[in-house]
């Protein structure tokens, strides 16, 4: 059973932070011997069904507004624009094939990567250079950032769906296009 005091402390720590709080940071903050996993599970349960929920994303824990409130919050809060389709596809390629060069991204999409797309992904802090490929010209390798995971609410890169699962049910093209525009 998780200690009520530990739960309060973890709650305060994660609530106060603007970015996800790692298990390591929690272990440091809680008294020695505290069971971080049990504490976080208990805290998760306490927030179930509330207007704010505790999620694991991007290498740590973070409180976020509940998903179902999105339409009503959007009316009040000003939200930035979503990434356009080309940027989302490029991001998906980087996520699945990282580390990957620009030429490889272009090869898979069969289209050149535009400056606008590259800028949008860099500005949104979704991708980051991660070394060079040891081939002629030593092209830059790209990878996703921790913010990418955090932005899409993914605990880890392993939580991306498997390729086979993606190909099972092709999404309706109509919807997709409506979203892309």
């Amino acid at each position, binding site marked *: 059973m998780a200690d009520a005091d530990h739960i309060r402390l973890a709650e305060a720590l994660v*609530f*106060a*932070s*603007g*970015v996800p709080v790692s298990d390591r940071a929690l272990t440091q903050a809680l008294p020695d011997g505290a069971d971080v996993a049990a504490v976080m599970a208990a805290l998760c349960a306490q927030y179930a069904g509330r207007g704010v929920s505790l999620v694991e*994303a991007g290498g740590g824990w*973070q*409180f*976020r*507004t*509940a*998903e179902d409130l*999105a339409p009503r*919050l*959007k009316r009040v*809060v000003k*939200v*930035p624009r*979503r*990434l356009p*389709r*080309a940027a*989302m*596809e490029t*991001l*998906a*390629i980087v*996520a*699945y094939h990282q580390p990957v060069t620009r030429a490889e991204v272009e090869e*898979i*999409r*069969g*289209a*050149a990567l535009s400056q606008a797309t590259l*800028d949008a992904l*860099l*500005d949104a*802090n979704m*991708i*980051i*250079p991660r070394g060079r490929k040891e081939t002629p010209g030593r092209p830059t390798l790209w990878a996703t*950032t921790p913010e990418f995971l*955090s*932005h*899409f*609410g*993914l605990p880890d890169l392993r939580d*991306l*769906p498997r*390729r086979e699962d*993606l*190909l099972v049910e*092709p*999404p309706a*093209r*109509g919807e*997709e296009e409506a*979203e892309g525009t």
Partner: protein
Amino acid sequence: MAEAAAHPVAANDTPLAEGLLLHLDGFDGPLDLLLELARGQKVDLARISILALVDQYLVVIEGARRVRLELAADWLVMAAWLAWLKSRLLLPKGLEPADEAEIAAEVLAARLRDLQAIRAAAVWLGARPQLGIEVFARGAPEAFAETETAGITAELGGLMRAYMAALRRGTRHRSYKPARISLWGVKDALARLAVLVGVLPDWADLARFLPESMTGPLERRAAVASTLIASLEMAKSGLLRLRQEDAFGPILLRRQDFGVDGRTEESDG
């Protein structure tokens, strides 16, 4: 069906030129169009008919060229490659060129499946609640520690963004000089090929027939496209032979073996 209406290209009749043009502009390149056409076949992507796909693509490109003569090079390169693929696929099975084409067709189908998977992944990602768009983090985070003055926080992404911002601002102050673009046309390519093919005794890569002075990727792609079209034109009139070992591999050309002198009248002048 909305799908059928949106893609008149699948029909037998000449497609409506205007709708088609709008359509082509909406695609992110030839592979994107091919995938859309393949999905129009409404079967598992593993079982699409490559021959039907080739025909549909060529119809679209032909239609687009009728309305707009200058079509981006990559559309034409793909068209030429698909035309080659089709000619080989129609050969009786068991012949070496036919087997080559089978492999090339499989490579193409695999690329389409890869693109399809990525597109599905992008849709999957886009459907997730995104931070700052659908779900929101604490608006007013509380910082507890006294600022550590010794350390700085900076990551490579920030450094790159800063560099690009600096370069952009820096270049804005310079006066704008439009870059001169001189693209290598089909006529140029025909003339050059006619001269060079006669000199070469054996198979040679298409890339060797490109002009030497090409400054950028655009010029290079244009030159590849026009040289390819020129070589197809010359192959049609029996002046040279074309060969490609594997899909997206180098295109090889050689003078027709017998009888015909590779030189044309223009090249003598």
